[in-house]
């Protein structure tokens, strides 16, 4: 296990290097010319050429990458082409917001999802079970923005009890995190129910169930341990989704997070900023999945990773 951990951590810089190269090349390969996009539609060709020189885009691509690498090794990911602010500081100003949103919606999704899913399984085919499953299906099929906009209209405009948008206080966090939590809650509830059912069906639990509710709760602890693997996997995967994929929620609520930063920088092909954001996302995703691996081994000690 420790060998696995060390190897994984040692590999991280190598992978980041590879990713930085791949993304660097892909960015320059895809259509969309930052000089044109930044100069604007009314710019003449001359303006565009000047912008290209200024952005350093007329250099040889490998020299550009070498420059990037040299600076990156000293902790400088360059400046955003658009705002001229250092990429690091742009990301730093967004990172806490993204974490706040991700963690709060995550807490909601995991707690509500697991509890309701497990209960639904224990009371399979009950009204509660059907209600939970119907909510889960609604959650998995509702457009995020639709729910968000309706909630904003109700809570902020009609009732006036929650701020409409922006960030700054815990009240600002309520609507975005609830609307962001909707889909993962549904998925986790559904996954917990299904995994729990698998376990419950095993004979010894069924006997327990026949004896009454109390016994089921006693077995719950044991049962859930085995049911945990798919749940934890999905939970881990969703952290990555919440971290980088909250674009719609961030846009609708004007939440200054990483997702919107990325979309805006893709729109203008702000190469350094895209690069920085992707590298950060890779680190986050790798670390979370790494954590999931460790937890799985803790739950089921028979699993071997190395």
């Amino acid at each position, binding site marked *: 296990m420790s060998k696995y951990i060390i*190897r994984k951590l040692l*590999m991280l810089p190598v*992978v980041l290097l590879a990713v930085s190269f*791949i*993304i660097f090349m892909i*960015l320059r*390969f*895809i*259509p*969309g010319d930052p000089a044109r996009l930044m100069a604007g539609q009314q710019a003449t060709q001359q303006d565009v050429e000047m912008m290209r020189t200024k952005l350093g885009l007329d250099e040889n691509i490998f020299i550009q990458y070498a420059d990037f690498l040299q600076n990156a090794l000293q902790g400088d990911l360059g400046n955003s082409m658009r705002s001229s602010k250092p990429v690091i500081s742009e990301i730093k100003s967004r990172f806490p917001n993204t974490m706040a949103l991700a963690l709060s919606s995550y807490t909601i999704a995991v707690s509500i999802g697991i509890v309701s899913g497990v209960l639904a399984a224990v*009371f399979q*085919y*009950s*009204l*509660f*079970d059907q209600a939970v*499953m119907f909510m*889960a*299906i*609604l959650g*998995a*099929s509702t*457009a*995020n*923005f*639709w729910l968000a*906009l*309706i909630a904003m*209209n109700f809570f902020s405009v009609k009732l006036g009890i929650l701020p409409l948008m922006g960030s700054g206080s815990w009240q600002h966090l309520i609507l975005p995190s609830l609307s962001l939590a909707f*889909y993962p809650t549904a*998925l986790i509830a*559904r*996954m917990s129910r*299904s*995994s729990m*059912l698998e376990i419950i*069906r095993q004979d010894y639990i069924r006997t327990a169930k026949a004896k009454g509710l109390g016994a089921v709760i006693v077995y719950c602890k044991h049962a859930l341990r085995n049911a945990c*693997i*798919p749940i934890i*996997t*999905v939970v*881990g*995967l969703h952290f*990555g989704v919440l971290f980088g*994929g909250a674009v*719609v929620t961030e846009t609708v609520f004007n939440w200054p997070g990483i997702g919107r930063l990325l979309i805006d920088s*893709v729109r203008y092909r702000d190469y350094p900023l*895209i690069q920085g954001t*992707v590298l950060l*996302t*890779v680190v986050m*995703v*790798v670390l979370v*999945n790494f954590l*999931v691996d460790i937890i799985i081994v803790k739950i089921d000690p*028979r*699993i*071997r*990773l*190395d």
Partner: protein
Amino acid sequence: MFNLIKKFLPGLFSKQKRSVLIGGLMVLLLFVVAVIAPLIAPYDPFQQDLINSFSPPDAAHFFGTDQFGRDIFSRILYGVRISVLEIFLAVGLSILMGVPLGLVAGFFGGKVDQIIMWFLDIIFSFPGILLAILIVSVLGTSLFNMLIAIAIFSVPVYGRLTRNLTLSLKQQDYVLAARALGASKFRLMFKHILINSLAPLLVQVTLTAGGVILSASSLSFLGLGVQPPTPEWGSMIGSGRSFIGMASHISLFPGLAITYTVLAFNILGDGLRDWLDPKLKNRS
């Protein structure tokens, strides 16, 4: 408490076979509508009527009209074809790519596992919009290419889920026993491990069905996928986004169509799993 309530309610969903029947009928309805849409749609889904745009649901237009005065009900009926096709292709593609990768990674472990998982982590962290732009520039903007893009987004999800399940399942007694009896690796992977991973995979599949159409709508601004005026639920929902609070029905009804579809597949999927599950054979 819940048992009590259950007793007094008509047990519509209380038997697995009924789930299969109801789910099956709901899915069948989708296919029937897909085939006979031209016969039952009250209006031409392409016919614009700019003077009567944004009219709310009424007797003439059950679901109201959209921005161009087109009948939303007719467009939803016609939209079944392409929307259901999207679900099948996108989900199918991501399973075909993700599940074998996960199986191999989990089964062989070690270096193979490491390499595959690094690969999946990188894809997973790669911004979807960039991936989509890349696909547009290499492959073009067809509907199938959009489905490839959507499928690739979810390959890591299926991959990691399968791999983590495999890690645990391959240590289970019956797998170890089969292995000791000399079962081939292929047989172990597909017969013993995959079969037992089906339940969680099925949940993932049935719930991501709606996500497919919703991602399709978010990619349409890249020019990927269906182009106007083709009726497709995702783009219908997307086009209503600018009119929420003013004409919310434009995205409400296609949204409900997606909910119906997901519901149908979920009921059918649940029922099928229960029905086919050997552990449940002796259950009433």
